[in-house]
């Protein structure tokens, strides 16, 4: 490798780590208190309410936004490689619809304590995946990839039908809006307590993915070739898949359904770095974190009532995605 490329890569690594941290730091001052947009530093130094707001509400919320963005875009990148399909997103194996069903169920049957909703969402997200996995093993048609995709579609449809029934049964004045609001995704109720159980899962999952990122290239070659290159295909694939699904379920249980991040951020990352997972996975993780923090800044600030985060990520994500895809190649790692 020539030195200029190596320097470029080192600089990139530093940027990838620094940029989300800096943006998170700045975002602490963005919101609607004391007045819309920006809180001056002296307010934070003098105003006790501002201090509580920043450290007890905004800081955990922003850390969660970072975790959500990093997790979804890492998991999306992993799934796209494992399934050898660039159109796959992290929740497609029944995780998203399962979590939605679980949340609605908790709102209907268990009252609406946030912790109950989150646990129920996490549990049903994992059940969704487990169902997809076991059904895929029973399907007698197609290769491994096709079977899991088919099973994922069926399980998602099953849970989304169940969700429909729950919505139909829900009290339209109180429960229904709560279900809808949860499904649209948002971070307004995040507390330090949520971080306590989400962060360990996210950190562990991201670590596995980051450490094994080059192996993803091998697994994307298909089973026979990967095995001929010495890869323990089943074991390594299961490990990476588990990591991706667990972090998706963990952040979805708190943030609701945050669309498009896991689908488009990996594409954007590939577009600006390379198709090599060793390069694009870190870019994807960093960009995902930045993207969700910025979306959440807008969600908090733009209107007096919050805009659901899932709407913003989809809207902005789609626009940015289209703009990038319509431009000629723009890779900086040549």
């Amino acid at each position: 490798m020539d030195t200029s490329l190596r320097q470029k890569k080192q600089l990139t690594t530093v940027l990838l780590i620094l940029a989300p941290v800096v943006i998170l730091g700045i975002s602490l001052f963005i919101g609607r208190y004391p007045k819309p947009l920006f809180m001056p530093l002296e307010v934070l130094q003098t105003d006790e309410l501002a201090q509580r707001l920043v450290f007890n509400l905004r800081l955990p919320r922003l850390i969660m936004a970072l975790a959500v963005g990093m997790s979804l875009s890492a998991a999306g990148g992993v799934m796209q490689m494992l399934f050898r399909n660039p159109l796959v997103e992290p929740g497609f194996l029944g995780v998203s619809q399962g979590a939605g069903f679980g949340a609605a169920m908790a709102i209907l049957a268990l009252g609406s304590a946030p912790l109950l909703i989150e646990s129920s969402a996490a549990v049903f997200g994992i059940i969704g995946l487990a169902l997809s996995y076991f059904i895929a093993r029973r399907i007698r048609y197609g290769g491994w990839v096709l079977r899991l995709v088919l099973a994922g579609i069926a399980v998602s449809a099953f849970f989304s039908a169940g969700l429909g029934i729950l919505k139909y049964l829900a009290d339209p004045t109180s429960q229904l809006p709560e279900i809808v609001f949860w499904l649209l995704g948002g971070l307004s109720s995040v507390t330090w307590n949520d971080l306590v159980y989400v962060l360990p899962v996210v950190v562990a999952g991201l670590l596995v993915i980051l450490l094994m990122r080059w192996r993803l290239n091998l697994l994307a070659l298909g089973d026979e070739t990967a095995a001929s290159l010495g890869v323990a295909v089943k074991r390594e694939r299961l490990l990476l898949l588990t990591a991706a699904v667990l972090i998706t379920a963990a952040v979805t249980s708190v943030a609701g359904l945050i669309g498009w991040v896991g689908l488009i951020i990996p594409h954007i990352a590939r577009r600006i770095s390379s198709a090599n997972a060793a390069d694009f996975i870190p870019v994807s993780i960093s960009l995902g974190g930045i993207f969700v923090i910025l979306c959440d800044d807008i969600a908090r600030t733009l209107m007096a009532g919050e805009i659901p985060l899932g709407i913003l990520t989809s809207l902005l994500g789609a626009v940015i995605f289209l703009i990038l895809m319509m431009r000629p190649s723009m890779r900086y790692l040549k």
Partner: protein
Amino acid sequence: MNAPILKTDAISFRYNPARKAAVDQVSFGIAPGSVTAILGPNGAGKSTLISLLLGLQKPEAGKVLLEGYPLGHYTRRQLSQWMGLVPQSEYLPFEYTVLEFVLLGRAPYLGPLDLPGENDITIARESLAAAGITELSTRPIPALSGGELQLVLIARALAQQPRILLLDEPTSHLDLANRNAVLRIMHQLKRNNVTIIFTTHDPEAASLIADDLVLMRGGQVIYTGEMKTTFTNEKLSKTYGTPVEVIPLDGYMAVKSIERLE
């Protein structure tokens, strides 16, 4: 023959228990440093046999021996250092550059958490040079022609630095110039003492380079032996199930197989 480096002992395999065996009671040995062509019509079980030799499929009966030990004696990783595969084709959904792609051939020497280093990049570049495609190194894979892709697949297997190279139909969909390029690389590898096993349904490709032949039909090996004694009208005709005539030509053998369509 020297003690065989790779040997099959009455191996059988079927994809579906209800169907007939794709590979049926196959036994033969591969001499170290030799070039062996597994020759036979479409559907004879050649590609399945390659998978069995590599340990990618497990035979339902019989065993494959590498240096006298059954394949189960080695780890997946050790096997991948011994044997490299050039697959018939490969579907790639993502736009790797040729160098990134060839670097994947270094996997047998890297731990699960390692990234390829300077040494691996050097070896990948040498593999590109050995395949005669140094100039392609920064090209994206989807922009390659079929012939170029075949050479890239070979370069990736060379980056594995295998003692035994297995190629599945390496020349089948190539034009004449590309076919000759592939054969030239195989010839050079043979000189470097790499044992080569390749499948083909084209007898001429076999006649240009093989020392030994394994003739397959319907999952069974019907003849095996040296080129001279095995590449005959009778044996080839029986293998292909159609009249084949061997024509000596400049020290090589061409084949003619014409049924008048009147």
